[in-house]
């Protein structure tokens, strides 16, 4: 056991693997001799599709380019790399997609890293027994989980905490690639092993997880450096054109969180009521006073989706002012034409951009009539054939139905593309967003070790 260091520097070269790393920021960041490279590779924000389909919302070529830069830097400086929420949604398909890219790079460059792969897909038999024990509760909603949800879910992941990463580091891993992870854990697993303050460690990770987003100007994908001390930590962008200010850092504490004073994570929470943000230099902010509060039970957040059908869409514009003035009549006529042939078994949505396409029923703006509208016709049905058939009828009805005062009797729509109908594929919805109590924070997350 080596003596505990007084400080630890963590470099997050970007907020999302695959969103790009400025080469100058990478070089300047590495010149600061960080102890660890850590990067978040996923998010739940792009929606339920990716968890269901097993695909990444990030692009393979872009991910490969970023990972090459990270591995080159790690190899040259002999420092560990920790990556969480691999492949975006962090299921096994996503994790193996990223590991395949990783192995390609290592093979081409001759890198031999001792590597840990940590799965975040959770065993359903174990979840059923946890459910029977009353150890699963809804998060942010009131839908009680049932055995049926577990059975129907296409894929279920759990957000791992610090412990699975700590176990991988203790097992000698130089590179850790993990499935779905609580965003800040990659940045703090070493710090917790070295006994740094837990509240400061979590807060530091929270600021690093989005890379340069905690610096101003907030523009483009970029990195952030943090140095953790025994009583505080500092953050600073490697990019000399950016600055961390008290406002930029404090504002980032708000980001994607319901409550800036209190942030929960697997095993506890941090409390920011006594946090101090101090401008230490023109570009660096020092943070202290963030407190850790242990949770009565260690919980893991579960995320799961169910397939609810297949989507087909068509996109079209409307320029005719008479149609726009009678838009509600027009839509009613389309719906009744479609319903004559297909009374039920699908869901038809007409998104009308220029009217209330973004805010929907709560749109309060009452502007004068727009000169054009953008329409997206959307059908979701149980099978792809029904979805395509209903959308095709909707599209032809929309092109030809009448409305009061109509003069343009040859066609109602301007289609930008041929073909007009686009099969989007399976549609998933979040059905599992729950907390499960666990005894051993590592047990649900299987780890394999290999050397590239």
């Amino acid at each position: 056991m080596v003596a505990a260091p007084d400080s630890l520097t963590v470099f997050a070269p970007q907020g999302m693997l695959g969103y790009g790393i400025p080469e100058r920021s990478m070089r300047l960041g590495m010149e600061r001799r960080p102890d660890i490279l850590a990067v978040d590779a996923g998010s739940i924000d792009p929606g339920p599709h990716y968890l269901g389909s097993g695909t990444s919302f990030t692009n393979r070529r872009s991910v490969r380019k970023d990972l090459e830069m990270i591995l080159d830097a790690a190899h040259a400086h002999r420092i560990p790399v920790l990556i969480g929420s691999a492949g975006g949604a962090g299921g096994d398909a996503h994790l193996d997609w990223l590991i395949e890219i990783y192995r390609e790079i290592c093979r081409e460059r001759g890198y031999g890293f001792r590597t840990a792969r940590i799965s975040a897909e959770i065993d359903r038999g174990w979840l059923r027994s946890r459910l029977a024990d009353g150890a699963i509760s809804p998060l942010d909603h009131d839908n009680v989980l049932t055995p049926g949800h577990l059975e129907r879910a296409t894929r279920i992941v759990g957000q791992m905490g610090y412990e699975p990463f700590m176990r991988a580091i203790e097992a000698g891993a130089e590179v850790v690639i993990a499935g779905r992870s609580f965003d800040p854990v990659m940045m703090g697993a070493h710090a917790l092993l070295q006994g740094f303050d837990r509240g400061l460690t979590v807060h530091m990770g929270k600021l690093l997880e989005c890379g340069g987003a905690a610096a101003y100007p907030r523009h483009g994908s970029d990195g952030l450096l943090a140095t953790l001390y025994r009583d505080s930590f500092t953050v600073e962008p490697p990019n000399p054109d950016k600055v961390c200010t008290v406002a930029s850092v404090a504002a980032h504490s708000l980001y994607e969180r319901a409550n800036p004073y209190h942030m929960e994570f697997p095993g506890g929470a941090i409390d920011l009521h006594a946090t101090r943000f101090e401008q230490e230099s023109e570009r660096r902010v020092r943070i202290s006073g963030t407190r850790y509060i242990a949770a009565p039970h260690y919980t893991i957040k579960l995320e799961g989706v169910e397939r609810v059908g297949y989507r087909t869409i068509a996109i079209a514009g409307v320029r005719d002012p008479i149609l726009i003035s009678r838009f509600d009549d027009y839509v009613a006529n389309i719906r009744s034409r479609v319903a004559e042939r297909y009374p039920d078994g699908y869901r038809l949505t007409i998104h009308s951009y220029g009217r209330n396409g973004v805010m929907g029923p709560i749109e309060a703006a009452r502007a004068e009539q727009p000169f054009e509208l953008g329409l997206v016709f959307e059908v979701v049905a149980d099978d792809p054939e029904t979805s395509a058939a209903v959308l095709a009828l909707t599209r032809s009805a929309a092109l030809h139905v009448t409305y009061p005062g109509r003069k343009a009797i040859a066609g109602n729509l301007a289609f930008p593309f041929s073909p007009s109908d686009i099969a989007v594929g399976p549609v998933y919805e979040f059905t599992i967003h729950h907390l499960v109590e666990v005894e051993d924070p590592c047990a649900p997350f299987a780890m394999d070790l290999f050397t590239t």
Partner: protein
Amino acid sequence: MPEQSPRRPSGALANTATIGDVAAFVTSKNAGPYKVALDIVFATAAEYERFVGQAGLDRAAVAAIYGIPLADVLDVIHFAPAFAVKITLRRRITAGATGDSDVYGAQQHVPLMQHRIAW
């Protein structure tokens, strides 16, 4: 950047401004698939304190601005360290579910940004 530059309205609008006129940022973004968080961030402590003192922005006011039930405004939190006010709304539709129109929740800020306050 605010949609409109600060102006000096006359008549009934004298001594008023929109939140977008006076704040540095007004943003919205999912806080998980079931909530949308709205942030109003000011450039200085003085502007933040002036806003907190006279905007009267509480849960009922936010419900009225958005035309949604009070129960769907989950929280209004003042966060002095960032010169910011954070509002959390319950989403009408879970992110990405059929019928949703804003998967990231990134364009739900406009009613707040255009809300007019005494200033």
